[in-house]
């Protein structure tokens, strides 16, 4: 066994650290106050290869692997969780295109990694279908060489700024009809809602999308009709490593602030290290082509729960001064809370884990 970071990991971390210091952390408070999408930070991340850490160099990615990706997200999240989540979704969408995409899709990846597109969006959830993805209502009807897409999507990260939408919809009425489409956000019939007023992560953009008979070419179809659910689940497995890493970055930053304030945090540090080890394991497995669904769920579950616990404990231990935004932890606490909800709630992770444990008996 070996739990040491190698030079690729350190190098990727270093890239993230430089940007964290120069551009991500400095503007974070202001972007939060102004609900300002972090275009500059995202462009800088793209320039450093961090919008496609696990994307092959031929598509403009860093090709540094999954552990390196996790390290980069941890560092970015410590500087600003809102930038980290945007980075995560972009990396996830780019990886999905790399894994499942045909030629037209592969061509898009360099735009996502280079910063030409500030981000991609992952359009799975609907107002009535959060945890229960299979209950989705959006439909894509074949009409000649095209599909006509209709439906509503909710909680779409970066939706207002995305260069590409990855959209899930049903083709026909069969149970296995869920399919994935790569959609141009500028097409007629797409309405972008106003941003959600969130508890935290104000600099990330979260919107509802309405698709009203949007005509998309049949090349928009990713993989085959009916492959959508499988694509989504695989994407989420990787996505959970991203969000787990974001949560760890938040916890790291809260611990740093607590240290500055002279608070005792041994007990909190222990669980953060547990979360980090769980994330490393999932990342190493993904990188090693070992099935990692359960391990990603464990990492995401524990990291997100721990991030919230750490922020909460630091607020309680610091007392009234913790309420002051200058102390720093109140923003982290608000930012952290959604990590237990998006990319599969904690409850969904527990279902994924227990199903696997029981199957292996």
């Amino acid at each position, binding site marked *: 066994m070996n739990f040491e970071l190698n030079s690729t990991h350190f190098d990727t971390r270093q890239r993230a650290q430089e940007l964290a210091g120069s551009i991500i952390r400095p503007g974070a408070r202001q972007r939060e106050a102004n609900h300002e999408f972090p275009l500059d930070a995202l462009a800088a991340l793209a320039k450093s290869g961090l919008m496609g850490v696990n994307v092959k160099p031929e598509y403009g990615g860093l090709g540094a692997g999954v552990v390196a990706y996790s390290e980069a997200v941890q560092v970015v999240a410590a500087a600003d969780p809102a930038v980290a989540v945007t980075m995560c979704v972009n990396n996830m969408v780019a990886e999905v295109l790399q894994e499942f995409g045909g030629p037209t899709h592969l061509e898009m990846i360099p735009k996502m990694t280079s910063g030409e597109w500030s981000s991609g969006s992952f359009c799975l959830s609907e107002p009535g279908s959060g*945890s*229960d993805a299979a209950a989705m209502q959006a439909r894509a009807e074949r009409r000649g060489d095209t599909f006509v897409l209709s439906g509503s999507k909710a909680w779409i990260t970066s939706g207002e700024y995305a260069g590409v939408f990855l959209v899930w919809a049903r083709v026909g009425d069969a149970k296995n009809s869920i399919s994935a489409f790569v959609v141009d956000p500028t097409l007629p019939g797409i309405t972008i809602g106003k941003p959600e007023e969130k508890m935290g992560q104000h600099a990330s953009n979260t919107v509802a999308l309405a698709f009203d008979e949007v005509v998309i070419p049949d090349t928009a179809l990713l993989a085959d009709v009916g492959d959508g659910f499988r694509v989504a689940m695989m994407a989420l497995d990787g996505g959970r490593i991203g969000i787990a890493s974001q949560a760890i970055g938040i916890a790291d930053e809260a611990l740093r602030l607590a240290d500055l304030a002279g608070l005792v945090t041994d007990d909190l540090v222990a669980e953060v290290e547990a979360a980090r080890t769980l994330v490393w394991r999932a990342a190493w497995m993904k990188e090693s082509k070992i099935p990692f669904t359960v391990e990603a769920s464990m990492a995401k579950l524990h990291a997100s729960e721990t991030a*919230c616990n750490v922020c909460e404990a630091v607020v*309680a231990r610091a*007392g*009234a*001064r913790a*309420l002051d935004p200058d102390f720093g932890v109140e923003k982290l606490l608000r930012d952290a809370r959604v990590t237990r*909800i998006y990319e599969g709630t904690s*409850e969904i992770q527990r279902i994924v884990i227990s199903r696997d444990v029981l199957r292996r008996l």
Partner: protein
Amino acid sequence: MDFALTEDQKMLRDMIQRFSEAQLQASAVADDKLGRLNASTVVKLRELGLLGLADDGGDLGFAAVALYELARHDAATALFVGQHCAASAGIAAAGTDAGATFTVPVFEDLTLEKEAGEILASASTFVVPFLDHANALVFPVRLSGRAALARASSHVLGETQPFRGLGVCAAAFEKGRLGGEVVEIFGDDEAVLVFETWRILTVAAVAAGVARASQEAGTLYASERVQFGKALSEFQATQFKIANMALRADAAWLVLMRAANRTGLNDNNRMVKTASMVAITSALYCSDEALQLHGGYGYTSEYAIERYYRDARALSALA
């Protein structure tokens, strides 16, 4: 032993419920966005007599009912009332005159110096809520090893910097440094004990109210939201959370009232601290589970649970 509210307490509760439904419920949302209590709420609180709960010594049991009911709809308003009452109660216990609207600052590194017969207070930092609605400050100090209360005009704080706290956002916190300003020292151990008892009772009551509001919001949402073809409340894991929330909200309320109904100030104070610990645990737990039941919706201002969650954590920092 009797766990039923008295008729007077029931009347008070009903009065506050009417006030809450008519005014507080809506103003709480607006105040939270703005980051401060609106003046009309303060006027109305005075009209209803709620700023006089500690006059003539006051009745802790009565006050607990009022603060809890207020907090079920608006934690910030309840905290404002409670802090004012704590200061009033401390002043009354010391036998001096009130006649102001009070708030309670939190200082770091507070030091007192005697100079030319005056007491000068300094602090490296302070945090104070509701400064825009209060013209006087009351806070506990130690002078020559003796516990006492200090009182000062809010002007002593000089230039302050407003900030929007984590939760109880409508508290409109301000912060700054205190550099050797003149404060009036009064009261003895007993006055401090009265002040602290009311102050901690306030935290307990507000936290208990937040716990109850969260529990109700989470339970209602779970009974309505359908996923996987069933209401969330039909899943066993959700039912267990619903049970735990109900237990925690009840525990917070009961220990609050037990503390508030005790006779004997020293006993009171100890049980009030216990009540605040129980209530904060309850507020943290209920608001967290209830938010989680809301899923993504709970993370937005569309549902009140988002505010309760912040309120609970702000209270844990003020305890």
